[in-house]
């Protein structure tokens, strides 16, 4: 039973102007594309857990990460 994880992907500089090509390659690799961020050069999507590490080898991919979370302490906390 495969597990889907959300991933963030950075595109290489030389592919900033042809992100659609990278998007297509990611789709072929099984990534379900959620957002394409043209100015930042990033793609957000979800994919099988088992496939994550392979994505880094795709042409045009500068980096891949499992999506992280951030959490602020409550507003009445001492430290922010």
């Amino acid at each position: 039973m495969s597990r889907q994880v959300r991933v963030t992907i950075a595109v290489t500089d030389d592919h900033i102007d042809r992100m659609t090509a990278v998007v297509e390659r990611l789709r072929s690799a099984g990534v379900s594309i959620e957002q394409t961020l043209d100015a930042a050069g990033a793609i957000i999507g979800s994919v099988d857990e088992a496939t994550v590490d392979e994505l880094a080898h795709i042409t045009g991919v500068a980096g891949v990460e499992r999506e992280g979370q951030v959490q602020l302490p409550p507003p009445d906390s001492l430290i922010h």
Partner: protein
Amino acid sequence: MADESQLTDFEVHDGGTTGRTLVVFAEEATPETVARVTGVAPSQMAHSSDFGIEAMNVEEMLEQSRAVYFDELKAAVIEGAPPMAAATIEVRGTSEPSVLAMEPEHYVFALEQLEPVRPVVAPGATKVESSRDYVRGFRDAASSLYDQLFEAPEAEAEEIEALATPRWADTATLTWGLAATRADRSVFTGRGVRVAVLDTGVDLAHPDFSGRPIVSTSFIAGEPVQDGNGHGTHCIGTAMGPKLPNRTRRRYGVAGEASIFAGKVLSNAGSGTDGGILAGIDWALRNGCRVISMSLGAPTRPGEPFSPVYEAIARRALDRGTLIVAAAGNESRRPSVIRPVARPANCPSIMAVGAIDAFAKVAFFSCRSSGLAGGEVDISAPGVAVFSSWPRPRLYNTISGTSMATPHVAGIAALYLQRTPALTARDLWTALQRNAVPLAAPRVDVGAGLVQSA
């Protein structure tokens, strides 16, 4: 920045307290104020002056009294947490804050904070030893401080007195943070410079921003950009609050004429995802923002490398003229616990901002350079007891964190960019560091020093 409860599976003490709280008062604090803040009546408070030249055993005193007040230091050690422990320090109208600093009242002694790997915790000796070591260290530090002050020969008294006097303080018309960074002396206002604050949004109808355009958008599904938390409004206030606020005489904002871009990447409950944050960065870049302020992040473990995704994006932003500044993180509990710079501030291409207090010391919570590439604290800024805007009806609040230090740098970056619009982002980074005031603190804690305005 990070919610401590996320780091722990358990609490060692009931309520997660150390059993002690250290509070430092302003020069003007009256006995009534001390009693109110500490929740300890004067009759229950032991005074250092009662002891004359005799050595004081803090621990013994705390067995008999609920609190000990160091008259020369204007500081108190309280058994337990003061009634205001969970609340922030309020500042009303033109009154000055009564409290300059407060040691953390919440203390969760999780082994996770002391060891790099989440352990399987068995009840018993391991937990107790870690807690006891910490409390012992705290007691020793307080006793040592007393010994230095009262045991020292007269010749050193002046020097020691200086240690107890803050270098800056809020006045009726200016926050200590703006004084320390000399923002009040600057002729620049950030006019013409677009600054994005990616946070919990903003109170769009706050009187201090009426008549000032705010470009805003929410990346949180189901939540409008209107700030239901406070954090975002506070950070925007520090970076870009007006020179003449509407409901207070105290100026708290650096770049009062910068163009405000408020991106809500954190929910009203304070949570966010990398996807939302990256979308926020993308939006800021598309809107020509030259500075992006991120008072957010996640704790890192020692040895953890930086995010290749944030780094690629931040480096590209730098290349294209946008400086991203982020909070170094609040996971430390100095002196016992010192944690590395948080993610994504630990990226080489993101400027990591540490926090200092009004004594020009590293804030007890501020994270330290990790020793890895990119993991340096690059610069520091005021981050303890920072007064700024807050959503209605409260309007203003005084809180602490590297989250508060970060927008000082963002606002100041806008001043530099107004002065020199053609400044590249890398040259801006260099200029901020070069003009910082060195502090008597290790570089691993404060980077190039205390940021200074253009």
